[in-house]
């Protein structure tokens, strides 16, 4: 039993193909994690990296407290079940299960005890003397599971173990694997391309596409709150209906206009409150998603609902107790091809629908999803990143929601009206501005707090639960974006990025050997950041050499990332010129020109003119510039 920590994991093949991109996840002990995604999304590669069958190109993988990047598979204390069983065909079932224990030189008595116990759990005791070829697919997969559980591993890895079984056996084995998980009480990581398997088995699911993690969440949250169109379409059967359309806000109502058809519906703004105002101009196109089960054909529901559209039926798939009615909301559409007007409705009605029938369907608008047309990300996220608020600036004072804030010099901007973008994580629950907490919703390990500021709803993030009550709030002004007329003041960059290289130098040092001074040659590693050499810290050298070949380490260009707080003004270091200051009231950042770049460095001392900077490399991030791989 163990937890796993996956930090910035990459898999890059020699030809440059990135199979896994910046995979980050913390897996708790005893969790049942499912990696799901279409073929080629990198899920199996990720699992094989955890198993140690594939090298990790960059990043850090820990099992328990131990970093296992360079640990052999046998020493990781993991077990793996393969899609094709991978049994030893020349051995009996008993020997197959016992092989791992024999290799570990366990006593015959203990091996026998464990093999019998595992075979009893899996119901294969009577097959112990048989060879794999004498067994059916389901029995072979049980042997494969037996081989895995007999070693009592910390982590069980299962690579599409049920893909080769028929539908009935798959359902049965699914239940058995769940039973096994409950019984063994160990961490399971399961790879599948079947979203039904993922939804029914995982405590958390990782949805992947093209090497990128799309969303990590519980099955229910994935279904209810998909982060993007891909997740929305991948999870759920039949696939979610997607229409193209526009949103236009007027007062507390939003009119949804469907593209390629006359269909319209007017919804309360309440359901779209988290969306940014730019989507409500009536021109910005969005994808409107709704699941087949959230659309009703029932006459009484349709009659009572104000949210309905007409559809023309194209064909029906009868599934026994329910039917899938396919159609089109464009009366000229065919309902077969996956178009922006095709609609699928799940119904349990016994009514027979014929091709060409025109009927009205009612949408459950509470369960509608909206996605940006270009990024395909949801426009109503569970935790909105940004609050977009209209504002006015008058003589250095920012006014929004009937609240005035004296702008610090760093945010000085001309007079006029515009917008202020307030990230949800910059609203602090200590300050001087009176507000009212109206709601608090738990999202993962954080809380989304709805705060009302003079009638305007703002979303804030908190690590603690809040109760609805009056409160005093403040804003971290370093993070806000202010736009008035043509002027825009950007937030303070969170990271200082400096380019550099990794270098080695042959050096001669003098050392005292038996009273005689002797010259000793050594090779030392340095980081050349902006033409200034710093001794390379051990952990950076190690990670670069483990991720890249020596030739690549010395020839690649790296970007070093520091927090503005992790750079100090010193007597020697990277040479720069202080060009100005960003004053945020209590904090002050010097804008230092280094070559052609200008970086912000925190300072609480007076500095001016030519300065020297020394970054703290112990907290630095290192990115290989050419491929954008975060190595440290």
């Amino acid at each position, binding site marked *: 039993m163990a937890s796993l920590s996956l930090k910035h994991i990459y898999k890059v093949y020699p030809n440059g193909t990135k199979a896994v991109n910046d995979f980050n996840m913390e897996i708790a002990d005893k969790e049942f994690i499912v990696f799901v995604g279409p073929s080629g999304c990198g899920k199996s590669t990720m699992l094989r990296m955890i198993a140690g069958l594939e090298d990790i190109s960059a990043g850090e993988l820990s099992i328990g407290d131990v970093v296992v990047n360079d640990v052999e598979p046998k020493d990781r204390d993991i077990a793996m079940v393969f899609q*094709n069983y991978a049994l030893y065909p020349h051995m009996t079932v008993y020997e197959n299960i016992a092989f791992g224990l024999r290799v570990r030189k366990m006593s015959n008595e203990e091996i026998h005890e464990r093999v019998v116990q595992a075979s009893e759990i899996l119901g294969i005791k009577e097959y112990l003397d048989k060879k794999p070829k004498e067994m059916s697919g389901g029995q072979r997969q049980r042997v494969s599971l037996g081989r895995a559980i007999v070693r009592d591993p910390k982590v069980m890895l299962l690579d599409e173990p049920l893909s*080769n079984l028929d539908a009935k056996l798959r359902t049965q084995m699914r239940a058995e694997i769940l039973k096994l998980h409950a019984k063994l009480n160990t961490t399971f990581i399961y790879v599948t391309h079947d979203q039904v398997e993922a939804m029914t088995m995982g405590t958390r699911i990782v949805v992947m596409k093209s090497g990128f993690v799309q969303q990590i969440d519980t099955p229910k949250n994935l279904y209810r709150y998909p982060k993007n169109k891909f997740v929305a379409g991948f999870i759920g059967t039949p696939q979610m209906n997607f229409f193209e359309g526009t949103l236009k806000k007027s007062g507390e109502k939003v009119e949804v206009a469907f593209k390629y058809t006359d269909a319209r519906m007017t919804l309360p703004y309440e359901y779209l409150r988290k969306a940014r105002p730019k989507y409500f101009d009536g021109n910005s196109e969005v994808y409107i998603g709704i699941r087949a089960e959230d659309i009703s054909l029932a006459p009484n529901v349709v009659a009572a609902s104000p949210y309905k559209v007409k559809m023309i039926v194209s064909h029906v798939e009868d599934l026994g107790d329910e039917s899938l009615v396919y159609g089109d909301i464009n009366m000229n559409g065919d309902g077969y091809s996956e178009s922006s007007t095709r609609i699928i409705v799940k119904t349990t009605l016994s009514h027979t629908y014929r091709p060409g029938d025109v009927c009205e369907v009612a949408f459950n608008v509470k369960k509608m999803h909206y996605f940006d047309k270009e990024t395909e990300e949801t426009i109503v996220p569970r935790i909105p990143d940004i609050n977009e608020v209209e504002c006015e600036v008058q003589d250095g004072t920012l006014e929004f929601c009937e609240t005035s804030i004296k702008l610090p010099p760093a945010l000085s901007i001309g007079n006029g009206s515009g917008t202020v973008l307030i990230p949800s994580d910059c609203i602090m629950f200590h300050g001087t501005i009176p507000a009212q907490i109206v709601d608090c919703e738990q999202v993962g390990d954080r809380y989304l707090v709805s705060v009302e500021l003079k009638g305007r709803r703002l979303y804030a993030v908190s690590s603690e639960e809040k109760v609805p009550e009056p409160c005093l709030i403040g804003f971290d002004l370093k993070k806000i974006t202010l736009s008035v007329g043509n002027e825009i003041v950007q937030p303070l960059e969170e990271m200082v990025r400096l380019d550099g290289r990794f270098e080695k130098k042959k050096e001669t040092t003098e050392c005292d050997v038996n009273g005689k001074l002797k010259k000793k040659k050594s090779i030392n590693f340095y980081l050349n950041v902006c033409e200034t050499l710093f001794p390379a810290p051990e952990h950076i050298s190690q990670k670069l050499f483990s991720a890249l070949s020596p030739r690549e380490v010395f020839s690649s260009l790296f970007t070093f990332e520091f927090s503005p707080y992790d750079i100090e003004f010193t007597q020697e270091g990277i040479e720069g010129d202080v060009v100005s200051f960003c004053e945020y009231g209590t904090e002050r950042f010097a804008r230092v020109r280094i070559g052609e770049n200008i970086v912000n460095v925190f300072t609480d001392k007076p500095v001016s003119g030519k300065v020297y900077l020394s970054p703290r490399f112990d907290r630095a991030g290192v990115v290989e510039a050419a491929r954008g791989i975060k190595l440290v």
Partner: protein
Amino acid sequence: MMEAIKTGKQKKYRSKKRVERVSNAVGYTILVIISIIWVIPYIYLILQSFRGEPGAYTSYLIPKEFTFDNYIELFTDTSLFNFPRWYLNTFITAVVVCIIQTIVVLATSYALSRLRFRGRKGLMNLLLVLGMFPGFMSMTAVYFVLKEIGLTQSLVGLILVYVASSAMQYYICKGFFDTIPKSIDEAAKIDGASRHTIFFKVILPLSKPIIVYTILQAFLMPWGEYMFSSLLMLGDQEMFNVANGLRQMLQRENIAEYFTRFCAGAVLVSIPIAALFIWLQKYYVEGVTGGAVKG
């Protein structure tokens, strides 16, 4: 179709059984003829080895007088031709070469099939291309090298020559290893097995047919080899192998007296190979990997 039945113009098909019978008859006739052509020299050789009448050639196939003397004299009359010594030389060479070559071929093939290292493909291609050149092209050079280190007229030199190119035989064996799913190696790796445990306990037991093939190939080559051994031994009859030695019996001055003895020697030469094949053929079965992975 209905139209055809109505009008009685149904297409007539040839009987499938009849077609099969005719094609089988033709096939078997050709095979029997080929077999007879192939077997006659062996029958001739065996019959001649039991011939009692002297002389090189006879105008008849079946001897008038049968005798075992030819076999007995091979081992007893060693004054001119020391057949037992040749036989021993050949046996020692073949066994040693067989053992070394089998190990080298299996190890090379496994490494080329399973390990991924820089220059792997280049090495495979190089070995393949080098293997296309006949060995005798390098005979003179090899002879001078061995002469320099004093290994001519010795079995060690001959063994060295035979095993030197072993790794070039990797191709068929690697092809077999490639058919064993890599997931079996990976499963064993996760079970805690080291590379050599995987090789000896998992891969080799699954590779019996190809091991048998490799052993037979490794044994056959030195057993019947003539060119290198005759060059290396340079007329030292004591160091000859059977192929080289038996060739001496067919010299113009010896053939009349020794032809039947030559035939007896040739029959004896084929016995170990036949025995080896009969012993190993039980392992020469396919389907060993059945049930390992989803078929």
